[in-house]
């Protein structure tokens, strides 16, 4: 078996000795060539995960390996673009590329200058004078010309207009297919991710809620729509094939989250295998959005439950 390009085992990071945990118990394996979307609300730990993978932070618990070694020893294989793609504002574009050329042994000079020229970015312009989108493109050029095997991009689409997003994603794809690089990128723009990524990681509250190949994940989930409140009445619950039910260690299905739409309840459900929906229920494979939002909803309602629980507990003695 080949070494995965990124391998996190029970990885966690705490900011400060008694500070808050940015990420906990994150186990994640990214093989070469994968395009991984990292999805989650603000403060979910996306940036912490990317910084750990880039060697900017050290794990407080667990381990992280890039191509079999600590990220700090694999810097030449990692291309990292931070959120808002910071670059030295007073340097010129070709100085920034010069820095890339001097600090990276595998630097592809032609790729860098060709790409800057194609994007119409003046090489003599100062970084501070560029638009946010142009700066993002220079930052991406820096990591593409580095010929990294693992691209780590923190909210790369945030500053780009729709046209630039398409170009950006195309470049990313191109880099992956040409060099076999894996891409791990974070985004809140769920709608745009489906076309480009083949692996999904949902983070919430510093923990991985869901991780896997998107096609497999979709096959393993159903959206089941039915009369309002069906999911709470046991009689109408969907039934799974008994064998799988046993293997799943429970009812064979697990309710992730529900939402009320137009007087009906639609639930995202994880299933072991072929699922037979009960009478009056319709089951369908979830779309990418339904999958992501379903898991983010789960986290949301979990939180509400714990909060209600705490309130009740606190009021009990009174």
């Amino acid at each position: 078996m080949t070494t995965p390009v990124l391998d996190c085992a029970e990885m966690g990071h705490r900011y400060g000795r008694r500070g808050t945990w940015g990420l906990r118990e994150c186990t994640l394996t990214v093989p070469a060539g994968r395009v991984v979307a990292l999805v989650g609300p603000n403060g979910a730990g996306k940036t912490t995960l990317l910084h750990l993978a880039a060697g900017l932070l050290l794990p407080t618990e667990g381990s992280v390996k890039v191509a079999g070694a600590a990220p700090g020893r694999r810097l030449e294989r990692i291309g990292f673009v931070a959120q808002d793609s910071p670059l030295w504002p007073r340097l010129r574009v070709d100085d920034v590329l010069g820095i890339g050329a001097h600090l990276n042994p595998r630097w592809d000079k032609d790729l860098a200058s060709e790409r800057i020229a194609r994007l119409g970015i003046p090489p003599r312009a100062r970084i501070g004078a560029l638009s946010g989108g142009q700066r993002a493109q220079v930052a991406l050029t820096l990591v593409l010309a580095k010929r990294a095997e693992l691209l780590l991009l923190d909210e790369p689409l945030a500053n780009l207009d729709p046209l630039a997003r398409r170009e950006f994603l195309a470049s990313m794809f191109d880099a992956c297919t040409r060099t076999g690089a894996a891409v791990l990128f974070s985004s809140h723009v769920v709608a745009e991710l489906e076309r480009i990524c083949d692996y999904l990681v949902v983070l919430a509250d510093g923990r991985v809620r869901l991780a896997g190949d998107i096609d497999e994940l979709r096959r393993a989930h159903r959206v089941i729509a039915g009369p309002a409140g069906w999911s709470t009445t046991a009689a109408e619950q969907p039934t799974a094939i008994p064998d799988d039910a046993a293997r799943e260690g429970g009812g064979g299905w697990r309710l992730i989250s529900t939402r009320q739409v137009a007087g009906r309840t639609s639930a995202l459900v994880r299933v072991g295998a072929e699922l037979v929906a009960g009478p009056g229920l319709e089951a369908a494979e979830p779309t990418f959005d339904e999958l992501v939002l379903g898991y983010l909803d789960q986290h949301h309602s979990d939180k509400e439950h714990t909060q209600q629980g705490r309130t009740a507990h606190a009021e009990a003695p009174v």
Partner: protein
Amino acid sequence: MSWVIWRQHRSQAAWVLLLVATLCGLMLWVRAHASADVADLRAAGCLLGDISGRDCQTPLDDFAVRYNFTIPAFELGVPLVLAVTAALVGAPLVAREAEQRTHLVAWTQSVSRSRWFAAKVLIVGAGLTVAGLVAGAATYYLQGPLSAGGVTSSRWPWFFSTALVPAGSTVLAFGLAVTAGAWLRRLLPAVAVALVSFLALFAVAGRAVQTLTPVHHTLPSDRGVPDDAWTWPSGASHAIPYHPAGQFWPLQLTFLAVLLALTAAVIALGWQGTRTRAV
């Protein structure tokens, strides 16, 4: 790495060069005038051993009045200007990168963070050392005719601003600023902390080198302290401690070593901050 450092710091280097050149130019110019005046005094016979018989009081007083400004301007000014310069160069080294968030770019190239830090500190620090040595040589050169003309009794009052010491003090201020910047991650607070801690450390280390090194003693009943000795208020009533003229260079070297050792310790602390402070 050296190209990158040159590209990132060349405007700073130009400013420091301009500043040191101006400072040294001024000192050479003052020295030229002072040595001409000393030559006149010598021609009038006012620099010889016994001047009581001649009318020398007025020209000597004139000389002292004319060159008194060199004490605040150069004796105090040179080390202060160098320290402020070094703090302004050192504080942004990590702090500005962190403020601009470009440390995220700098530390994810193929060069490890330790190499990045070491190369920056060594190359920029070496530049400032050269600036300090040049300024120290210039003050030493200036101080000669000033003492000859009687503005200061000897080169001892200039001890902390001449010869090798400015190189050490400049490097210490630089190291403190780098370290303050690495921990505070903000430029202006780092400059302030660096300058305050520099003044405190420099004063304490200077006092320590002056008083804790082997000293000579003299009794008031003896011949007294020689004119070219280094004395300080010690509170001792019978045996007055002092450093004779011959101790000047050994003490310069000692103080330089102390300053460099302090700098090394401070820089190690700065690396700790650069390595461990959350990104």
